[in-house]
């Protein structure tokens, strides 16, 4: 039966119109604008000047470096902690949903609000974190006001925020593992360690791959949490600037949209590349 129900387009019309106007067009436009100079109301073609500019701009490289460092540190650490916690809740705890509810709380709350709270917890003088560190005689750095600590502060906050989503997704995946696997393993006298590495982990590979992709994409877009932690700044002296910060700054503050769009294109390519690389990697692991 070959039918072509044209009325389908009618139902799809709102979605297609909005998607074309606010998703497809802006991608093309961003690409076009990355070759244009001048201000928003007076754009002119400048060939590759914007790209030349950002590649020669130390601030751009700092933003990229920070973003990549943030991604490669916070994502694996956050994921490892999440796997550990999800496994403990799944394996050992009776009131699973209570812990699930608790750990998921940060996901629904505003990054700005909770970032403000962390600004106090991180405060060098009267912050709770340094109070605890001092009480066990550990060094108490100035998390917010020391440029050397900016990235570390952002990473800690990022890990804290990322646990919520990861744990809930992992719990869902753990619940989906066929309980017979464990029953049979028990029959053969497998240890807890064996069960974890031989059953749980391989079964979790697709979920971990999914989380890795989501987390990496999320990490490359980091903006709001930096803004919240440093009160609208990108850390002292821009020490914690990120790719989106750089784009926002060039677009809105400095008023060079072309430069911002060139940076956007580069960011987009990095995200695509990271996703692609990570998928390839996970496929390899899945095959073994």
């Amino acid at each position, binding site marked *: 039966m070959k*039918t*072509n*129900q*044209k*009325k*389908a*387009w009618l*139902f*799809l019309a*709102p*979605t297609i119109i*909005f*998607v074309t106007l606010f*998703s*497809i067009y802006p*991608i093309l*436009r*961003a690409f076009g604008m990355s070759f244009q100079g001048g201000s*928003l109301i007076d754009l002119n073609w400048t060939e590759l000047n914007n790209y030349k500019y950002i590649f020669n701009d130390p601030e751009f490289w700092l933003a990229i470096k920070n973003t990549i460092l943030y991604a490669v540190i916070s994502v694996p650490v956050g994921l490892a902690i999440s796997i*550990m*916690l999800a496994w*403990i809740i799944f*394996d*050992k705890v009776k009131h699973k949903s209570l*812990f699930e*509810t*608790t750990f*998921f*709380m940060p996901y*629904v*709350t*505003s990054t*700005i*609000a*909770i970032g*403000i*709270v962390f600004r*106090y917890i991180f405060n060098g*003088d*009267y912050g*709770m974190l340094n*109070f605890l560190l001092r009480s066990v005689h550990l060094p108490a750095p100035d998390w917010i006001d020391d440029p050397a600590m900016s990235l570390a502060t952002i990473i800690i906050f990022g890990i*804290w925020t990322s*646990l919520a*989503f990861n744990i809930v*997704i992992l719990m*869902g*995946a753990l619940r989906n593992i066929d309980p017979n696997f464990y029953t049979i393993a028990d029959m053969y006298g497998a240890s807890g360690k064996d069960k974890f590495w031989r059953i749980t982990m391989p079964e979790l590979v697709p979920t971990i791959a999914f989380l890795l992709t989501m987390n990496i994409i999320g990490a*490359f*877009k980091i*903006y*709001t949490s930096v803004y919240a932690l440093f*009160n*609208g700044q990108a850390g002292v002296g821009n020490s914690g600037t990120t790719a989106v910060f750089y784009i*926002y700054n060039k677009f809105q503050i400095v008023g060079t*949209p072309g430069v911002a*769009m060139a940076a*956007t294109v580069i*960011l987009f390519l990095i995200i*695509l590349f990271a996703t692609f690389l990570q998928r390839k990697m996970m496929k390899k692991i899945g095959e073994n």
Partner: protein
Amino acid sequence: MKRIRLSVLFSYVILFIFAVITVFPFIYMILGGLMNFQETTSIPPTLIPHHFEWSNYAKVFARAPFARYFFNTVLTASVTTIVSLFNSLLGAFAMVNLRFKGKGLVQMVLLSLLMVPGEAIIFTNYNTIAHMGLLNTYVGLVLPFLTSIFYMYYLQSYFGSISSTIYKAAMIDGASDWDYIWKILVPMSKGGLFTVGLLSFISGWNSFLWPLLVTNEDTMRLLNNGLSAFASDAGSETQLQLAAATLTVLPILVLYLIFRKQIIKGVVRNDLKG
């Protein structure tokens, strides 16, 4: 036997520590919002305020138009939720129940658009909205978010699980597509729609970068932008900042605690996005 118990104990300790790390900032926020200034900045830090300063909240409302921020946020989050749900519903219906030329192409384009980070297009969208003269308007705040490819996919999976014979039977009985959507599809996937609605509302409530771009008048700000501006203005008055943060977080936290099952279930179903 003893070794196993020790490992269980160890697991519980880890779990407990992380649970405290997760919950503590919320507790500190709520308590800090009720302290006086000296208490929030004392060394060693105070945890329980000596006397609950409820007047902090009155001060927050007096200093900045938080009531207005609430109104703006509820309005824009509700409108984007309702309209995008409606649009996604229609689109998902067409993709699941109708056959047409180009369906594969539409599916493919939409799927690949899911990969595009919002931050990559938000600035050019600003440009579009500015050209339309919609800066500092409610329309400008909601327009780019009136449809959601993601929610459409989400609903597609719901609708796909409803047997197509029901659709065929409805057609034979002379029902129109519109009838089918409202009399069968919607009631049968109420749970899914509600969950998507909740998630959409929460993300609308927490939105930050877009409203920061398209509004600069105080009266048009949303909660999070108002809050961050307030935090900068109230600079040294830490207790007021924490009270304002509590105001922003508490409504959504209450919503979450009421509907936590649906919200968590909805997020877990996310897996189809991968």
